[in-house]
């Protein structure tokens, strides 16, 4: 049958085309999902200021939120340094070094669609600093304020400019601000307006509780669903402001798995694709079964922090240097820790901008160590008894007991008689603040608490400055060295980033030359994952960027 009418023919052809198109097999693109087993026993807090230390920042901070400044996590080779985040540039006031101006990134919106601007920055500073602000939340103060101890207030200059004030001149501020995550004021306000409560404080608490279940930041990941203590599901923020960091994976599921064997089993059985800190004794099997292992030097130090109170044997620099020279760190790494550490020769290793050029080289040299001890008056028949307080476990403590027993044996060869005082982790952590003179030190000459070395205050100042002695901060051993104090002041008051880094390097070199600690190891943040996971860059950082990660389904 020939259809002569052109219109009818065209209509029929269109109909046939539509019909055949409908009959084509649909190309269904499967959702890509990455499932991660965390070491945390619970999902870190989701309301903008995570708990559970830097694991919290890694999973519920840097994923859903941004800060004014950020870490460059793009390289596995170079140390992570601070880069612009929600602020594109910043400078300190030439006349008043306590005032900083931050230019904000234009065109950024929160996940709820509200704009990110100067009001949002002021609101977020006040959530942890201004006690009479409606959004003030005491539970977020502890994990924030101590990481930016000098920040005093924030003031809007215009929509895209904000002024931050510090209590004293402090060039570390831009580094510390990586810890202040920007939550959406508009979203919180909506919860506050709906909240029930006897007073404004109760309403505020209810608003934060609601916000934690339905969070809104500006980060590359958005909250999809949250089951307390079971899982947090994040989906990619396709309209993230940094197009280069829009996640490649559709969904990321975070699962708390505090037990190392359980995490490893979950990975081996295919229940998760990625685990943090797999069980060390399972590494050979993981490798043999084709799982990928990632590890890199972290800004983390596993030390003995010496007591420098009167009468302490560590007051003799020869003894401090001898201890540092008597430990075979390579042996510790290859034997006990199955390669999962980097030998420490200071707080920062070569290549780091704050390393400097110490003249005292921390390495394994037993003969030199023995010589120093003999010069100090000790020998095979006159051993020096030192007591160290440690714990059997704890966050970041790696393998404290076996590692300390290793040190005990190693130092015995250099005429040390090491006694260990093993106490519960939280108690050790509390005692850390009380100092070597406190009865809680139980007569110990050293304490073994690991520390993060992400920023100058955490890495150096709190231990080396005399004013940081207990009860102020963590100068547990009451170090009182005028040179350190002078260098701390210089670093803090040097506002050119390159010059500040140089001053910090000078401080670090001085601390190594003084053998301020027994530097033993840096953790390497081991993680294992399925061969399906690709694009992983493990930087020299506690953090990791999930945006470039892909997974084959």
């Amino acid at each position, binding site marked *: 049958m020939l259809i002569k009418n052109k219109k009818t023919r065209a209509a029929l052809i269109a109909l046939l085309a539509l019909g055949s198109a409908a009959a084509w097999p649909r190309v269904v693109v499967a959702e890509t999902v990455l499932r991660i087993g965390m070491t945390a026993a619970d999902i870190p807090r989701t309301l903008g200021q995570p708990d559970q230390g830097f694991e919290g920042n890694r999973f519920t901070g840097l994923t859903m939120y941004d800060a004014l400044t950020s870490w460059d996590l793009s390289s596995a080779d170079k140390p992570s340094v601070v880069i612009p985040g929600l602020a594109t540039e910043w400078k300190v006031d030439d006349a008043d070094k306590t005032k900083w101006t931050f230019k904000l990134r234009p065109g950024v919106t929160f996940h709820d669609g509200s704009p990110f601007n100067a009001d949002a920055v002021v609101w977020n500073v006040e959530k942890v600093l201004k006690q009479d602000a409606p959004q003030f939340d005491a539970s977020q103060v502890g994990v924030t304020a101590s990481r930016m101890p000098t920040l005093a207030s924030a003031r809007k200059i215009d929509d895209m400019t904000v002024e931050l004030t510090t209590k004293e001149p402090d060039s570390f501020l831009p580094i510390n601000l990586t810890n202040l995550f920007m939550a959406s004021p508009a979203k919180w306000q909506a919860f506050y307006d709906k909240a029930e409560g006897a007073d404004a404080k109760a309403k505020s608490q209810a608003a934060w509780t609601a916000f934690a279940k339905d969070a809104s930041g500006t980060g590359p990941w958005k909250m999809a669903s949250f089951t307390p203590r079971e899982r947090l599901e994040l989906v990619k923020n396709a309209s993230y402001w940094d197009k280069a960091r829009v996640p490649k994976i559709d969904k990321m599921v975070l699962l708390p798995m505090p037990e190392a064997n359980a995490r490893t089993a979950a990975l081996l059985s295919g*229940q998760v694709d990625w685990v943090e800190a797999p069980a060390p004794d399972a590494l050979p099997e993981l490798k043999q079964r084709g799982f990928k292992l990632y590890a890199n030097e972290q800004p983390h130090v596993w030390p003995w922090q010496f007591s420098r109170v009167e009468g302490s044997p560590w007051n003799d620099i020869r003894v401090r240097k001898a201890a540092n020279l008597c430990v075979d760190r390579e042996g510790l790494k290859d034997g006990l820790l199955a390669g999962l550490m980097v030998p420490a020769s200071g707080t920062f290793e070569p290549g780091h901008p704050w390393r400097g050029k110490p003249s005292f080289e921390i390495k394994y040299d037993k003969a030199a160590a023995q010589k120093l001890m003999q010069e100090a008056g000790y020998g095979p028949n006159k051993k020096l008894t030192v007591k160290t307080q440690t714990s059997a476990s704890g966050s970041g403590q790696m393998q404290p007991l076996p590692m300390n027993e290793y040190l005990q044996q190693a130092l015995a060869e250099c005429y040390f008689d090491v006694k260990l005082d093993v106490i519960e982790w939280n108690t050790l952590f509390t005692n850390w603040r009380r100092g070597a003179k406190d009865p809680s030190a139980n007569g110990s000459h050293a304490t073994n608490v690991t520390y993060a070395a992400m920023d100058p205050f955490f890495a150096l100042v709190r231990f080396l400055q005399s004013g940081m002695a207990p009860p102020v901060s963590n100068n547990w051993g009451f170090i009182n060295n005028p040179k350190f104090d002078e260098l701390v002041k210089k670093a803090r008051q040097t506002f050119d980033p390159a010059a500040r880094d140089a001053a910090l390097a000078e401080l670090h070199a001085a601390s190594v030359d003084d053998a301020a600690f027994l530097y033993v190891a840096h953790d390497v943040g081991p993680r294992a994952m399925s061969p399906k996971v690709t694009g992983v860059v493990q930087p020299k950082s506690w953090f990791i960027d999930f945006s470039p990660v892909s997974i084959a389904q």
Partner: protein
Amino acid sequence: MLAYTARRIVYVVPIVISVALVCFLLVHITPGDPLVAVLPADASQELAAQLRAAYGFDRPLPVQFGLWLLRALHGDLGNSIATGRPVLAEVMRAVGNTVTLAIAAAIIGFTMGILLGLIAGYFRETWVDKVATSFAIAGVSVPHYWLGMLLVIIFSVQLNWLPAVGAGPSGSNSWAWDWAHLKYLVLPAITTSVIPMGIVTRTVRALTGDILSQDFVEALRAKGLRETGVFRHVIKNAAPTALAVMGLQLGYMLGGSILIETVFSWPGSGFLLNSAIFQRDLPLLQGTILILALFFVFLNLLVDIAQAAIDPRIKRG
């Protein structure tokens, strides 16, 4: 009976107050700072004092206890220091998961225990008895967590039949009795069931053997009753004691197991206790212990009243 019940309830009051006091003091007398979860060691004194006041830890202990008890009586156990979430909701959710696990473990453990016990008792001193008794001994002797890991290695890692950890599939926010959820329950339930299985087996075996050796059984047989009929009498006589043992075991299981729940990342009360201890989350720790302790107290009260209702001779003063 009413007077007895009222008396028993009155007796519970000082027990509850004592339990609350012990829960409160236990976590306060241990060394360390209760704010360690939220207060970094670098915090200034001012900040520490501010937070201590915000959480009420700056007040004298008796005042803290009084306020805590008063709030607890109104169903407010405070908020978790670590998460800010209400403790009561956290504990009830965890208890719900533990109850699910306990029910599944009880079904497996009691069924297996009764069957093995009856078989062992009936075929006493034979190889059948020896095999069944070996199971029972293994059940009470094998460390829980070791068995859990072994099951995970076999059924999750090697065979890939069952999930190794968790309490439900991705996207599921509550428990459901379907295979998607049940498969998460199998391994922890089997692990939890082995001790009750062993204890019930041994109890039922002893009861069965004892009853079978009594004169009335001979009389029943002499009267021409078939073995199935005799067995029915045995079960009837063994039931009260066996049920009491099973009740006790169920109570223990409902308390949750830190080890098993941690090995399987099962979000029950044991897992919650582990988190609370690890994070030194004082309100959560107190709340969890209190609720679990009260659970035992009230379970005992119910058992006492039920026993008295069934058999008035056992009413106690």
